[in-house]
């Protein structure tokens, strides 16, 4: 049986992490292909219903990443995201979703190597946790 290949969705902001991931490419730093990026203007835009949608559609893990605190291109979007994540994390936990499958991080436009690191660490962590379809089953059965 082939090794389990997790599918990770990354929700990133345009100005820091997307640019950081571009830098990873420009620097030709290799990382695991299990991650696919969806671009947003700002982490503040990332509606956490999107995270649930991703789990419902079969994601095994999620990365949310944006500018470091104080570095937001839009001044404060990342603070909103952080505050929302703190609340949302508790809710996920309460709902029985394994919060270890969501990685929240800050990667700046200059941190190409850090992006590769965040991706590889998350992929390895999720690989250990195994496939995730509890939430998908509930979602498919119409429970959500």
């Amino acid at each position, binding site marked *: 049986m082939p090794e389990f290949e997790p599918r990770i969705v990354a929700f990133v902001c345009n100005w820091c992490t997307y640019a950081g991931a571009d830098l990873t490419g420009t620097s030709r730093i290799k990382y695991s292909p299990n991650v696919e990026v969806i671009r947003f203007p700002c982490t*503040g835009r990332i509606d956490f219903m999107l995270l649930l949608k991703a789990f419902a559609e079969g994601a095994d893990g999620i990365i949310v990443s944006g500018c470091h605190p104080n570095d937001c291109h839009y001044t404060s979007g990342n603070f*909103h995201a952080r505050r929302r994540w703190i609340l949302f994390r508790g809710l996920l936990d309460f709902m029985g979703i394994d919060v270890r499958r969501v990685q929240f991080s800050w990667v700046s436009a200059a941190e190409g190597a850090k992006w590769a690191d965040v991706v590889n660490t998350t992929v390895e962590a999720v690989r250990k946790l195994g496939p995730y379809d509890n939430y998908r089953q509930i979602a498919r059965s119409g429970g959500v």
Partner: protein
Amino acid sequence: MSRIGVFICHCGENIGATVDCERVARACAGIPGVVHSVDYKYMCSDPGQNMIKDAIRDHNLTGVVVGACSPRMHEPTFRRACEEAGLNPFLCEMANIREHCSWVHEKSEVTTEKAIDLVRVIVEKVRRNKPLFPIKVPVTKTALVLGGGIAGIQAALDIANAGHKVIMVERSPSIGGHMSQLSETFPTLDCSQCILTPRMVEVARHPNITLHTYSEIESLDGFIGNFKVKIRKKARSVDEKLCTGCGLCTQKCPTKKIPSEFDAGLGMRSAIYVPFPQAVPNKPVIDRLHCTFFLKGKCRLCEKVCPTQAIRFDQEDTIVEADIGAVVLATGFDIKHADFFPEYGYGAYKDVIDGLQFERLASASGPTLGEIRRPSDGRKPETVVFIACAGSRDPAKGIEYCSKICCMYTAKHAMLYRHKVHGGKAYIFYMDIRAGGKMYEEFVRRAIEEDGVRYVRGRVSRVYEREGKLIVQGADTLLGAQPVEIEADMVVLATAAVANDGAEELAQKMHVSYDAYKFFAEAHPKLKPVETNTAGIFLAGACQAPKDIPESVAQASGAAAKVSALFSQDELTREPVIAVVNRCAPPLYSTCVGCFLCQAACPYQAIEKEEIRARDGNLIKTVAKVNPGLCQGCGTCVAVCRTKAIDLQGFSNEQVFAEVMALLNRSEANAGI
């Protein structure tokens, strides 16, 4: 039904070598809604762009997806091509299969699969894209130049000479920056002040330039063409209009033993002072931390001697507000100081100095009037050791980059020393000599061959004192790492050039990115070296990375050209990526419930209240409304909206949810047809 065209770029070998582009194009042809899918060697080239234009006309496309490099690179290129072919540019999007795929993964099936995924996701997004129309905004034709060093001066003069207004802000009492401290400049050995001070005067006299010295930025709001800046003019304690700059106050001030910042601590200044004689403006400032009156409540000697009654002890900081259209950041650099090199004895021994201090020693206007004398006893040093790369290129010190200017200024220092102290011995410990630049290599050769400077390739491990001499212990790696010990009278450290104090806070106020070393980040390392990621804010000089004078001046003129180009337009077009609150007829049906969470979350105060009234004038409800001129399109309001009444054009809920669903539902499309 959508009619989408997919264009996969090989980017030469950059994508083609790891991703099977033909397969990606074939697979994408099978995605519902895609009517045309091709691959090509260079999509951004003229023939490539023409392929897109022709396809839009021939296949009547309603959307275009280009699978190529990062949208941060070529999105404008492809959108313009679409526009030229009559397609709304916002119906074109890019899938990043280079930076996010081919460059970061090995050649394999999986990489090609991922490329197909990335394109499919964008196809799903484009299916839901709506034509958008750029927003027109006016341009305030005044530039803000931050920093009055050579880069700021050059940028300000260039912009002002192009006929635009400039506001220059400098945090110290005079403009001039580090260049005004230098003795002579490489590779020509012309006197730094002689070439700089005329420019400083020109700035002060220019009718288009308003100068604010001893001032700092309080805040910057707004966006390209329409910024609002608040400048804090720190209390100078001197009325600039009345002061004639006669200098009587500085002569009479009883507090005279304050280390002078301008002389890098080697000279002294009084509590009321002008940093240096050629300062612009030539008006003193009271250093309130050292002034006897501010410390003890009495003295007021300067007030008594001032012939024009210009002293103002009760002056307070004032805030100046201004509308500006563009910003040039030219805040410069600093060098590493004391305590950073305990192994070299800096701080412990007076005769271990840094490069800037040596500049002051060698300068005719310096504390020794240009004679090279030891700070400890004033003797002429017979042997001087210069240590290059003190801190730079040293991962152990946390500074991995090359400070770039030190090879040249160390050669210059050694040369100046040999010119001033005949018979003196100059040694330079170096790692490599990096003398790339016009006449630079020749200059270093001249130091070695004509002026007899001895270059020792190797690092210095330690500097310590023995019987009044500084013992420099190092290794000569060209002689098989043979230990070298030199008895020196003075040691000069070419310490690392680092970002200025407060660079991080300033970057945060300006909303520009910065790197791990707090140098401001350019928008693109090669093609946008003077732009930042924030439109309308440009970089000049060493605040971006260590630079020498010619490079700083060149970049400053580059930034000025960018600003002038911006100001040549009366109106700017801005991307219409902004939030909108849904409204439908009859307006009662707007799903906005008027909770105004969005208003609290908006960093730009772009959310306004709108009253929906019935025909009889009765208020039905109050809903949110976005001011399109203020909205910057971050989308924070969208995520907090409870009823999903507010949405972001270009990143709408429909689009992003479709992206997530498309990404995770690999259909047969990926299998290839």
